[in-house]
């Protein structure tokens, strides 16, 4: 199991920063990296990042870390990220990232100024039955705990999320039980009523 982060940062630029194309409003990068910025090249051989068709050379192939593409542009679009592994027996995995240049809500846009918009996603690569080649690297990598105890993606965050999910789970479960009881009640009532109707119909 290899935890990693994929995502993008976007910073607004002024026209003079980018004389080549004045319509471009942001400078952004999209990347794949370790949770704490570790080098993942022990298992990742290449990252193929597919940008919007309008970019020059929309398919970027990065063979060595940092697995990152930096561009300027004006639009948001979905980026395809394909991760190929050192072990050629492993099939590449594909994930999709929505490039985001502007903050989600209006207030944040107002307050943003020159601050970058950072959208990160935590993800884990799971190697089910890896080959001999890969085992050593994975073992060495996981010898050190990679997820920090505190921080954005930490054991603490995980626990909090689990707690939240547990909480929601119990709420939903309670609601479900309530609904089930209600259903039984309604059906019982319906049954009695139907018996009564049959009785009436017979008269």
């Amino acid at each position, binding site marked *: 199991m290899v935890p990693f982060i994929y995502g993008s940062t976007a910073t607004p630029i002024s026209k003079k920063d980018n004389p080549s194309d004045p319509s471009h409003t942001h400078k952004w990068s999209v990347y794949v990296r370790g949770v704490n910025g570790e080098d993942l090249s022990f298992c990742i051989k290449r990252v193929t990042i597919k940008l919007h068709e309008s970019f020059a050379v929309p398919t970027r192939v990065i063979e060595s870390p940092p697995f990152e593409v930096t561009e300027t542009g004006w639009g948001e679009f979905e980026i395809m990220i394909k991760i190929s592994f050192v072990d050629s027996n492993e099939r590449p995995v594909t994930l999709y990232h929505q490039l985001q240049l502007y903050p989600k809500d209006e207030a944040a846009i107002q307050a943003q100024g020159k601050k970058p918009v950072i959208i990160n996603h935590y993800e884990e690569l799971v190697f*089910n*039955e890896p080959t001999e080649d890969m085992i050593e690297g994975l073992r060495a990598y996981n010898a050190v705990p990679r997820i920090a105890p505190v921080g954005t993606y930490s054991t603490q965050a995980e626990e909090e999320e689990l707690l939240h999910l547990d909480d929601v789970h119990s709420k939903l479960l309670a609601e479900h039980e309530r609904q089930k009881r209600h259903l039984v009640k309604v059906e019982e009532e319906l049954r009695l*009523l139907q018996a009564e109707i049959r009785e009436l119909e017979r008269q």
Partner: protein
Amino acid sequence: MLEIQASQTSAFGGPGAGLGDGMSPAAAMARTSSAGSLSGDVVVGADAVPQQQQQQQQHQQQQPHHQQTGEILAEFVLPTLQPRTRPAGLQPVPGHAAADERGAAPAPGAQSARAFRKQASLDASIAALTGGLPPVVLARRWPAASTTCRRWRWQPFTNSARTDSLALGHWSSDPNEADSRFAAQGVQAQVMRFTDEEYDTHLKDPAWSKEDTEHLFALCRELELRFYVIADRFEGSTPRTIEDLKDRYYSVSRALVAARHGAQDPQGKLMTAKYAYDKTREIERRRIIEKLLSRTPEQIEEEEILMHELKKRAASEESWNRERELILRSLMNNELPPQTAVPLVPLSTDPRKKRRPLRGDETPMMAQGVDAIRRRNRDREVDDSPLRKEKLPCGAFLRTSRIQPIKISLQTRATALLDEYRIGARPNMPTAAVCAKFDEVRQLAVALLETKKLVDKAEHELKVAHIRRKTLKDDLAGGRKPAAAAGPALSAPLAGKRPLVSPPVQREHKRARN
């Protein structure tokens, strides 16, 4: 290259089909004359052969050949796949082609030379069409007929199945045949005989008199056990069915065998088996056959339709079963959320170890009741099901890819419901534990929505039932016995204006439930 005789290729088209294009006059003449003498010489698709190849054909005419002479060649030569050497010489002068031919092979006449030329051109045309490879289906080798024939003689014979010694004659190829071949068919039925004594000790039957039994056996002997005829001719004291007759005949025979051989004698047992007869079964069989034969055309048609349906069902049954199994599995899986997560997390540094402990656990777990069975089921799922294999690919995959999608029909509502609880489309930190819990929560939300659906449906039915009851009560109140409708307070005063009543009632019920 190969030899193909004209007689075989003649099956492929009309005589002399369009060989003329671009051919030199002499060759064309030779061709027409040979085509006249050997009608049926045909080249497949020869009209497509361009001039160059025609010249090649003439070129070929020079080839030395060691076959028989032309006509025999055209008629009988088998398709030997004999390679021919093509001389690298100059193209021959067309007019001298025949002379060349004669020089090369001792042909008896011009006609055979032409035939041979024809043959050669055939080779070339076919070679041009097939790219020099032997065509696959041109020739068929018939099995060689034997050259000797059997000698048939007129000879006398007798038939041993006959009682008289009538001697006749017939044509036969077998000199030793003295008895007729049909003697084997003349077998006589061996109907047992019994003495009066035997009858008195073993064969008495209250349903049968001795006279009737004797009459039956006489008929059996006379009519060679053809029971349909026997039943027709039987004139006993009482009318009897064919089953009655058969039963009596076989039971008497069995009793006689038992009496004469004893119960333990193997030969006796064998013979008893020969006379086995089960009357009730035979009657049942006849009844069923009669039923089968007396079906009306409509019934037959219906039966055929049903059979067709059955076949269709049987054909689709397999896929149904498979689908059903998958659904069952996924249902079972949903019931076991914490366990689903456990084995899928190769948290140890060596993910290879992951499967081994699972398999090892299997045996001790068997004893641990339902839980063990479920876990084993899940294990099997991981191992067997193609669906599962997709979900747990052997190799690298993303943790979130294991999260099960919500079924489309409930997607919007489920997303909205989960939104209420601040759960998005994807966990914030999709570790193994989180993903498992996340999946569990989502499936629970789906289950909840499904239950809600059922509740809505039941409530609706309840509403309808309430209205129905009210209508009925009103009917009763306004109809024949108004006093009987004392039940609900509403119905009596409003009985007259039923159509206006339902909406307020409906609303009332709704309010009551909410």
